[in-house]
């Protein structure tokens, strides 16, 4: 076999029904880049429509891409693609986790793992370079994710990385995760592993990823990237005024400043001002604990953690000794919604409980995260807490729970903000105890089961984006029509930050609009915050670009919570980033020359294939009506204090209108060459993307738009 660069070249295939382990070639899928793109191709080719998430015929694919393992900044993520249990039609979907699993897999010589079938008894998969075995997991089954990882390492050695499910995944709770390391979880697919009786995957890699280009060129490009990278979510402005900075924004994640510490390090480590010219402070820029949990979290911060090869450390790792009171280890880590999602169950907030005083909120967060991370419960991007609140407020639990079960739930703790409620809550959810535990089935399922109707879907506080049962995730509230469009296409929360890593940079609007003009053709692609204008083609271009970059990043695999590098902190560059960096790294790593435009086209191919799978699974080409349709709270005008409607597209309201969003969808469909009426891929667009076979298949099923 010729030398392969960037890619490892091999896909591991495991059939748990037969126990067969085989090898496939990565490069036969190279038109789909890697990770999510290649996974979509495999799902299209090999999983028939009508298959359900927990069927043996469903496949679950752990994917990395050609940049993973090379050392490109922020390239440690694993993409996981499978049918999604929470989707009402079990639509194909991807979840992602950071950590160190993906690079270890690459170094073991594998780009992806495709798991199919169903084991008769619990198993775990052991990968030591080219040696792969299916092992007995009877003693792991029933354990939490932390112990499971330790057991894997006890077999394989301390160097091994593991991805595992907890009790929630074992019990096929729809809202469950696959998790690796201290705090990296992929939400939604834990139950799929559980259905296959696959408890964990352990991997140990002693090989390497070869880089095609000259090593000096590679190091130069890495150096350049490091010179424009910002803080978490590519925020390029510090939180407080700094001598080196022209701008500041208190909402920025570049929290570093003099006098701010990792307070529980021994001795404490000061972040300092983190002048961007100091390459040895890049990893100190984001003190995320104080951002996620408030200033009180500084003293609990041991360090910041994150993923392989990422200099931006966005996971805060805390020592919260109060946890020992609840029989938990004091060390707890996570980031962002990994904290606020589990905590969000406490919908009245966390008040002073058990004498924790002003640190009650931090202790409560730590309890929630510890439970969710060990049982492996997914919060559905914080939706589980909003669903709980809706059902509580509307008396749903009184209606649907047996009286004795209702009486057994410590509601008073929830109401008064005592976070020990979470211990009871996650026990019920993870072990599927009683009717109440169906809150873990996900929003679409509880709507059916508990008879929640239009009021539920259209509740503004509920934040459910479509009837697909997933919530808002960086939508119109921050990105006007661009964000709203992005939220319509996935079968789960969009998990797209391509737009936010630009919109949320915290640079002044004038600079951002200039950059928007350069990337998308007009400054009108971007509206000032909360001062939105009606739809235009440049916004559609922006949204299409964001969708393409997201699947591109999940295919390469680089982190879409940092990439793309649209902006920088560098005044001398006019705060410009470099949107061509993915292509430059790709070309150097693989030796396959790709321009920025060509890589975006490959991403559009992947995204269109994803769209085609959705059409085939739904059995209906009218995705505009059946899939992309937004719940009404998004397009309903707000009211002012006097009860008068605030017209959309006036300063101060973020509400959309139905007509404008219909136009926005039309324009977005046009950007991809799809049918403007239904939003489904046409024969012409499929052929344009080199997907003629897909067009044939859809035509046979009468699923091509007329």
């Amino acid at each position, binding site marked *: 076999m010729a030398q392969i660069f960037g890619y490892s070249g091999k896909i591991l295939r495991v059939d748990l029904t037969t126990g067969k382990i085989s090898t496939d070639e990565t490069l036969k899928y190279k038109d789909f880049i890697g990770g999510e793109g290649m996974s979509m191709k495999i799902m299209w080719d090999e999983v028939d429509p009508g298959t359900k998430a927990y069927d043996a015929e469903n496949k679950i694919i752990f994917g990395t891409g050609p940049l993973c393992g090379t050392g490109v900044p922020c390239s440690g993520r694993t993409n996981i693609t499978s049918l999604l249990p929470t989707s009402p039609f079990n639509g194909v979907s991807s979840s992602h986790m950071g950590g160190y699993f993906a690079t270890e897999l690459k170094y073991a010589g594998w780009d992806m793992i495709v798991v199919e079938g169903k084991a008769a008894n619990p198993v775990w998969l052991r990968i030591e370079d080219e040696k792969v075995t299916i092992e007995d997991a009877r003693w792991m089954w029933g354990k939490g994710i932390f112990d499971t990882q330790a057991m894997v390492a006890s077999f394989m050695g301390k160097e091994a990385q593991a991805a595992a499910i907890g009790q929630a995944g074992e019990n096929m709770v729809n809202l469950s995760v696959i998790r690796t390391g201290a705090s990296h979880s992929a939400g939604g697919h834990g139950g799929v592993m559980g259905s296959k009786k696959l408890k964990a995957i352990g991997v140990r890699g002693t090989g390497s990823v070869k880089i095609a280009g000259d090593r000096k060129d590679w190091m130069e490009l890495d150096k350049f990237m490091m010179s424009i990278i910002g803080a978490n979510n590519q925020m390029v402005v510090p939180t407080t005024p700094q*001598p*080196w900075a022209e701008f500041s924004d*208190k909402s920025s994640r570049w929290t570093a400043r*003099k006098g701010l510490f990792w307070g529980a390090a021994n001795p404490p480590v000061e972040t300092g001002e983190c002048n961007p010219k100091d390459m040895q402070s890049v990893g100190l820029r984001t003190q995320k604990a104080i951002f996620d949990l408030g200033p009180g979290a500084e003293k609990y911060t041991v360090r910041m953690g994150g993923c392989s090869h990422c200099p931006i450390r966005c996971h805060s790792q805390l020592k919260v000794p109060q946890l020992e009171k609840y029989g938990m280890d004091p060390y707890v880590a996570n980031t962002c919604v990994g904290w606020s999602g589990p905590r969000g169950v406490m919908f009245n907030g966390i008040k002073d409980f058990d004498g924790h005083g002003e640190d009650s909120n931090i202790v409560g967060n730590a309890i929630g995260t510890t439970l969710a991370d060990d049982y492996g419960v997914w919060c559905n991007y914080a939706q589980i807490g909003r669903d709980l609140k809706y059902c509580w407020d509307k008396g749903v639990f009184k209606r649907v729970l047996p009286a004795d079960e209702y009486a057994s739930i410590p509601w008073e703790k929830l109401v008064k903000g005592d976070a020990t409620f979470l211990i009871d809550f996650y026990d019920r959810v993870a072990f599927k105890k009683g009717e109440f535990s169906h809150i873990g089935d996900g929003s679409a399922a509880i709507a059916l089961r508990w008879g929640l109707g239009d009021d539920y879907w259209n509740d503004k506080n509920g934040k459910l984006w479509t009837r697909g049962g997933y919530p808002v995730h960086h939508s119109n509230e*921050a990105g006007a029509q661009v964000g709203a469009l992005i939220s319509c296409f996935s079968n789960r929360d969009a998990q797209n930050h391509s737009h936010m890593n630009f919109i949320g940079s915290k640079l002044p*609007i004038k600079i951002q609009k200039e950059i928007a003009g350069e990337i998308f053709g007009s400054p009108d692609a971007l509206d000032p915050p909360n001062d939105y204008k009606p739809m235009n083609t440049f916004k559609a271009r922006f949204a299409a670009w964001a969708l393409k970059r997201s699947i591109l990043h999940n295919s390469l695999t680089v982190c879409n919570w940092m990439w793309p590098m649209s902006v920088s902190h560098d005044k001398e560059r006019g705060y410009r980033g470099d949107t061509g960096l993915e292509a430059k790294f790709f070309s150097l790593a693989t030796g396959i020359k790709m321009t920025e435009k060509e890589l975006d086209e490959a991403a559009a191919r992947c995204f269109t294939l994803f769209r085609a799978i959705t059409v085939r699974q739904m059995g209906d080409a009218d995705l505009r009506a059946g899939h992309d349709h937004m719940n009404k709270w998004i397009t309903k005008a707000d009211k002012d204090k006097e009860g008068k409607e605030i017209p959309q597209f006036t*300063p101060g309201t973020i509400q959309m209108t139905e007509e404008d969003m219909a136009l926005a969808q039309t324009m977005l469909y046009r950007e991809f060459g799809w049918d403007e009426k239904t939003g489904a891929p046409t024969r012409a667009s499929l052929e344009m993307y080199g997907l003629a076979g897909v067009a044939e298949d859809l035509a046979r099923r009468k699923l091509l738009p007329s």
Partner: protein
Amino acid sequence: MDEATENGGGPSGALEPAAIVEAIRASSAAAALCCRSALSSRFPRADIAALVGASGAADLRLIEGRTETYYFSELSMTRAYAVHLFHVAEKDPLRMVAETVREESRLYPRPTDLRTFLDPPFGLTPSELAATVGALELQEEGRDIAQVRASNGALYLYCTSYLVPALALSLAEWIEVGQKDNP
């Protein structure tokens, strides 16, 4: 405020221009402005303004205060930060708050969290800040500065020349509540 290098000029003063430039740069590197009065006492025979002007050092900038001139080097300090320090040095909290709020409303645009002024580099005490906000409501300096309160009670100021009330309110609400709800 000035911890710059000592006069290296010697009796002739021939090296004074270089020493003055270095003093300004050292101040900026230590996150401080360099006052002309401090330079004058260190280099008593020198015409500071003339020497700085003639130094050819392209990184040096100045801000004129009421009675003082402040120098800084753009090698290690931005004008924006220097302006904050300038307001602090001039001991005019009213103007500091008003101009900062105006600039943020114009530039980003966004209303300004009042608590910003309690932190470095501003460093007002809570009572100074309260007095300043009170004065802004009454005095001419604050004619274009308005207040808005987010639903969590946080008070923000904004400049009415750049933000209409509805926008200022929604932005304050976004910063305080909405953004945390949409992390």
